[in-house]
């Protein structure tokens, strides 16, 4: 097997607090939506990869708690701890190995059930760093300062990302935070950690996403046209923040180059039509765009201000509203993939980009973008 496609996607609404749904309830909803989308039954699924994080879920071997609701019983089910894009990568390799014709990949989390600051503080090294008291927000604020210092990107440009993505979410019924806001609103919102205001940060969210990947010989009987996986790669940077130049993302640059090479993308500016990037914070959308070569280094902010990344712009970025409009960690990157699939099928209604055939989706795992997974997807074989 040398080629595969995404043939089904399903996701729950992204919400602040799904008080009526446990992890398995969310998985059940997303998996059944994905099966219906693909025109498949659970019997058509050859193997399952679930993606979750034990500490976020507050239980050991959290992935197995959703295996029943994912239809994994009596199947080969395996788990990935990290972003859903990494689960999808594993799911794809299982098909390319020739062992399976289809893989169901799920990813879930409920940020509402714990305390995100304490969970992400535990990502720091317990001997050298944890007692300092940092978490994901303060660490990323430090990265934002480093990036802005090096490139001259302004607070207003960061705010503009928030305005764009929350505005896009107005047309996405599954988004948690659709909002018509202004740059002034973002800059006037509470300063959490300099330079990140509340509206520069993604919210804490609950949600689950499921996708079905099929090998080339299993795509003919699916309900909708397959979305082909043209290239994918992931790459990690050093663990300790102090070992890296936080103002840059060389691991993302490497992962993107590999994925683009695989997909035959030589001029991303013209060949990529839609992008869903991991905008956990406003600055990240700009920083990732530059690291991926989707615009020149240090130029994402000024380009954003010209409307280049709007839905009708040169490269629509996070037309779905992105993570700023709803951020269930773990599921986050898989949702980016699902949104690109829906764009390439022309299914996204009010946020539909005009006739895209090639899109890029991106997932992140680790503090300040330690590792990145990049996917190039296309409606054309």
């Amino acid at each position, binding site marked *: 097997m040398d080629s595969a496609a995404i043939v089904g996607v399903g996701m729950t609404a992204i919400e602040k607090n799904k008080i009526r749904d446990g992890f398995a309830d969310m998985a059940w909803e997303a998996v059944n939506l994905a099966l219906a989308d693909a025109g498949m039954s659970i019997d058509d699924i050859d193997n399952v990869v679930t993606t979750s994080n034990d500490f976020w879920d507050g239980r050991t071997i959290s992935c197995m708690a959703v295996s029943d609701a994912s239809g994994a019983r009596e199947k080969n089910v395996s788990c990935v701890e990290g972003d859903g894009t990494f689960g999808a990568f594993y799911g794809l390799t299982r098909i390319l190995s020739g062992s399976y014709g289809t893989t169901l990949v799920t990813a879930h989390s409920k940020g509402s059930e714990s305390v995100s600051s304490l969970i992400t*503080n535990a990502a720091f090294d317990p*001997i050298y760093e944890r007692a300092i008291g940092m978490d994901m927000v*303060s660490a990323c604020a430090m990265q934002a*300062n480093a990036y802005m210092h090096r490139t001259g990107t302004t607070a207003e440009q960061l705010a503009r990302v928030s305005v764009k993505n929350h505005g896009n979410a107005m047309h996405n019924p599954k988004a948690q935070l659709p909002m018509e806001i202004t740059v002034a609103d973002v800059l006037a919102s509470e300063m959490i950690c300099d330079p990140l205001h509340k509206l520069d940060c993604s919210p804490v969210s609950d949600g689950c996403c499921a996708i079905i990947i099929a090998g080339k010989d299993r795509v003919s009987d699916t309900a909708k046209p397959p979305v082909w996986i043209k290239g994918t790669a992931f790459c990690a940077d050093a663990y300790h923040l102090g070992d890296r130049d936080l103002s840059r993302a060389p691991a993302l640059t490497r992962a993107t180059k590999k994925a683009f090479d695989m997909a035959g993308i030589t001029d991303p500016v013209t060949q990529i039509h839609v992008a869903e990037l991991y905008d956990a914070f406003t600055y990240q959308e700009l920083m990732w765009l530059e690291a991926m070569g989707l615009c020149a280094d240090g130029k994402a902010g000024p380009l954003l201000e010209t409307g280049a990344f709007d839905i009708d712009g040169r490269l629509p970025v996070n037309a779905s509203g992105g993570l700023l409009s709803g951020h269930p960690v773990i599921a986050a990157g898989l949702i980016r993939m699902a949104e690109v699939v829906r764009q390439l099928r022309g299914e996204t209604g009010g946020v539909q980009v005009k006739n895209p055939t090639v899109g890029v989706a991106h997932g992140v795992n680790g503090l300040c973008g330690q590792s990145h997974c990049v996917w190039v997807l296309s409606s054309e074989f």
Partner: protein
Amino acid sequence: MSSLLKQVEPMVYSSQISVPYTWWAGDTAGRFLKTLRDEQTIMGTRCESCNRVFVPPRKTCPACFTENETWTAVSDEGTVVSFTVARRQLAAIAQKVPVIYALIRLDGADTALLHTIAQADPDDAKIGMRVRACFSKKAGATINAISHFVPID
């Protein structure tokens, strides 16, 4: 969710995970922490292959994939390579906000150490500022044996 269930009162089970845990520091971090406690000296390890000095010290060089066998003392003064001022009292923060967090590259080191800056106006914090470590004997052999950094001219 079935519409029948909309009549059901949402139930929640409140609990807490509290598990005692012991992380052995290992030889490398152990020596670093002991030297901090006993001598108020900040030590790093050097990669003989790329010549970079790691502070805090690492047993292996992430770039060269070789073992760092050389120890070297570095200065207790350094330069802020990035920082943030935490304004909201996030749950992980032990002190009262505002707290200045910084990555500090000590003189003689090639990597930056994560710590806090105190006795400074948060609005004066900036990339490139010079700082010096202050030590605390009561913190024992922990990273808080450096209690914080202070600005220097």
